[in-house]
C-alpha cells in the first residue's frame, strides 16, 4: 500500500498549513475557555485567542513543560472528565513523582491513526506478523504499537519485553516479519539467537524493525540491517504527546511528523526564539487535536532539526532529523529516563555516603547500556572490613535500583576523589558514542 491515508499524507503544503491553523485556532479557543491552567498561562503572557491570526502566531503562546504535568499530578490539567477518559498511561518522574497522561477514545483513535500511517510508510500492512517487544503496561510503547499494527491489519504477537529465547522461538514459529522494540534489545536478541544456533538473517522471516525509545546511531542502523538482513526504521514519541507516534518512511531520511496531528517548531533553548528550518535546536510540539491532556508548545527537550521539503516518498508532512541529544541532562538507559537529579536525590537519603559528590558513567557493553554511579564514602562510615564496605555498596545499589527503575553498578570512592564543580555540574560521562 502506498499510503494509509493519501488524501492527508500527500496534501499540498499550503493546504496542510491552512488545516493546521484551523486546528490551532480551535484548540486555543477551547483551552482559553475550558482550561484554568492554560487560561492563566495565556493571561500571564498577555495573549488572547483573537491574537492568533496566522499559524506563525503560535509563537505568541506560552510554552508548556514537563514540570507542568508533575506539578499538577495526577490530573489537575486534564480537560476531560473521568467519564470521558478510557485509559491512563504513567511515566516515571524525576524525583519519584510520575506523570500521568489520560486519553479519551478520540485521543486513542488519533494515536492509532498516526501509527497506522507511519507503519504503512515503513512498508508494513496486511500479511505482516509484528512482534511487539516493547513493554506492555503503564509504558506507552507496547500498547501503542499493538493497536497501530492491528489497525493496518498486521497480525500482532504481543510478547512484551524479556524471556528472549522464547521470543526468538516465537519469531521463528509464527513467521514474524516485523518487530518493534528498542535497538539495544534487537541487538541483544541477535546475540541470544546466535547462542541458540539461530541466524535471524537466514533462519527467520524478519524483514522490518521499528526501533526507538532510546538514542541510537546511524552506524547501529547499518550494523543491524546488514547483520539481520532487515530494514530498520526510527520511531519517535513521548508519553506526553500520547506515545510513540511517528516513524520514518522507506526513504529512511527523517521522521514524518503528521502535520494535522502535531505542529512542530524548533527553538533556541536559551532564548526560546524560533529557529529557521534546517537549524538544530530544541523540539517543541503542539498536539493539535488532543482532548484529555492538550499540549501546546510542549518543550520536549530533544535536540533535532526540521526539514519542510516534500519527501521523495510523496508525503508533504515535515520531517525531523534523528535526535542528537537533550537540552537537559536526561539520560536514557535501556529505554528508561534517568535524570542525574534523581540519582542525587536517592544518594542524599543514604547516610553512609556523600550524596552531593557523585558521577554517572554510561557505557555500552556489548549490546546493553550500563550505568555506573560513583559516590564518595563518608569518613565515619569507613570500616577496614571488606564486608562492611560491600554492605554499603549493596545498599546504595538497592536504593538506586528502586528509585530509578533500572539497575546500575556502584563504585564506592574515597572522600574528595571525585571532581568538584564550579557552576553547572557535569556529572555524566557518556561513553556510548552515539
Amino acid at each position: 500500500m502506498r499510503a494509509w491515508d493519501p488524501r492527508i499524507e500527500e496534501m499540498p503544503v499550503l493546504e496542510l498549513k491552512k488545516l493546521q491553523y484551523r486546528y490551532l485556532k480551535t484548540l486555543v479557543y477551547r483551552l482559553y475557555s475550558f482550561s484554568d491552567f492554560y487560561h492563566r498561562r495565556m493571561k500571564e503572557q498577555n495573549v488572547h485567542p483573537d491574537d492568533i491570526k496566522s499559524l506563525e502566531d503560535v509563537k505568541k503562546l506560552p510554552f508548556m513543560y514537563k514540570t507542568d504535568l508533575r506539578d499538577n499530578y495526577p490530573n489537575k490539567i486534564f480537560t476531560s472528565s473521568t467519564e470521558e477518559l478510557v485509559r491512563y498511561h504513567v511515566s516515571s518522574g524525576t524525583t519519584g513523582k510520575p506523570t500521568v497522561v489520560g486519553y479519551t477514545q478520540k485521543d486513542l483513535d488519533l494515536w492509532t491513526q498516526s501509527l497506522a500511517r507511519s507503519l504503512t510508510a515503513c512498508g508494513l500492512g496486511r500479511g505482516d506478523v509484528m512482534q511487539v517487544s516493547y513493554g506492555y503496561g503503564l509504558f506507552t510503547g507496547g500498547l501503542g504499537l499493538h493497536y497501530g499494527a492491528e489497525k493496518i491489519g498486521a497480525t500482532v504477537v504481543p510478547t512484551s519485553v524479556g524471556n528472549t529465547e522464547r521470543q526468538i522461538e516465537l519469531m521463528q514459529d509464527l513467521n514474524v516479519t516485523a518487530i518493534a522494540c528498542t535497538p539495544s534489545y534487537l541487538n541483544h536478541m541477535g546475540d541470544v539467537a546466535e547462542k541458540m544456533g539461530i541466524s535471524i538473517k537466514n533462519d527467520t522471516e524478519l524483514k522490518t524493525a521499528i526501533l526507538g525509545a532510546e538514542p541510537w546511531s546511524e552506524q547501529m542502523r547499518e550494523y543491524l540491517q546488514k547483520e539481520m538482513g532487515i530494514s530498520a526504521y526510527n520511531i519517535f514519541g513521548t508519553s506526553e504527546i500520547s506515545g510513540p507516534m511517528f516513524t520514518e518512511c522507506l526513504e529512511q531520511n527523517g521522521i514524518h511528523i503528521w502535520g494535522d496531528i502535531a505542529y512542530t517548531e524548533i527553538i533556541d533553548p536559551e532564548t526560546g526564539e524560533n529557529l529557521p528550518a534546517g537549524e538544530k535546536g530544541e523540539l517543541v510540539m503542539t498536539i493539535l487535536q488532543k482532548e484529555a491532556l492538550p499540549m501546546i508548545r510542549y518543550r520536549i527537550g530533544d535536540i533535532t532539526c526540521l526539514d519542510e521539503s516534500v519527501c521523495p516518498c510523496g508525503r508533504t508532512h515535515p520531517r525531523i532529523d534523528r535526535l542528537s541529544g537533550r537540552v537537559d541532562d536526561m539520560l536514557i538507559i535501556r529505554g528508561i529516563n534517568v535524570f542525574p537529579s534523581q540519582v542525587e536525590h536517592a544518594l542524599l537519603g543514604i547516610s553512609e555516603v556523600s550524596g552531593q559528590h557523585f558521577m554517572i558513567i554510561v557505557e555500552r557493553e556489548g549490546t546493553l547500556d550500563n550505568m555506573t554511579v560513583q559516590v564518595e564514602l563518608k569518613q565515619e562510615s569507613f570500616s577496614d572490613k571488606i564486608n562492611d564496605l560491600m554492605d554499603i555498596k549493596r545498599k546504595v545499589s538497592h536504593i538506586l535500583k528502586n528509585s530509578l527503575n533500572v539497575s546500575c553498578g556502584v563504585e564506592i570512592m574515597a572522600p574528595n576523589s571525585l571532581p568538584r564543580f564550579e557552576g553547572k555540574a557535569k556529572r555524566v560521562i557518556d561513553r556510548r558514542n552515539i
Partner: protein
Amino acid sequence: MDTKDFIIKQISVFSENKPGRLAAIAKALEEEKINIFAFSIAESKGFGVVRLLVDKPAPALEKLAHLGFMVSFTDVIAVNMKDEPGGLYETAKILGNSEINIEYAYAYSGKDAAVLILRVDQVDEAIRGIRKSGGELLKAEMFK
C-alpha cells in the same frame, strides 16, 4: 594483666583499585621515616583496604589523612609464632581452643620471629584467652 598493653593500632587505608595507590601510601610513609612491619591488601570489586603495622602509628595516620586518604586506626593483636614447621598449627590450635572468632588475619615472618596479626570481634576476651592457653602476644609499646 591489662589487655590494653596488647592492643595494637593498625592503620587501615581505603583505596580505589587503580595503579599507583600503594606506591602513594608507601611514599608518604617513607617521607616521614616510618617503618612498615607488615601489611596486607584486602580487595573487592572496585576498591580495597590496605592494612599496615608501622613503628609510629600516630604520625603515619596524620600524614596519610593530610594527603587526603581515608584512613583509620583499627585495634588488632599480634601473636608470636615459632618460625619453624608446625609454628602456625600451634598458634591456630590456641586460637581454636580459646574460641576466638577471627575477622581477618595476616602474617609476617621476620629475622627474630614469625607473627600472626589478627582482627577479632572480642579483643579483650581474645587477649585473655590466648595468654591463658599459653600464647605469646606482642606488646603495643613496640608500635609507638
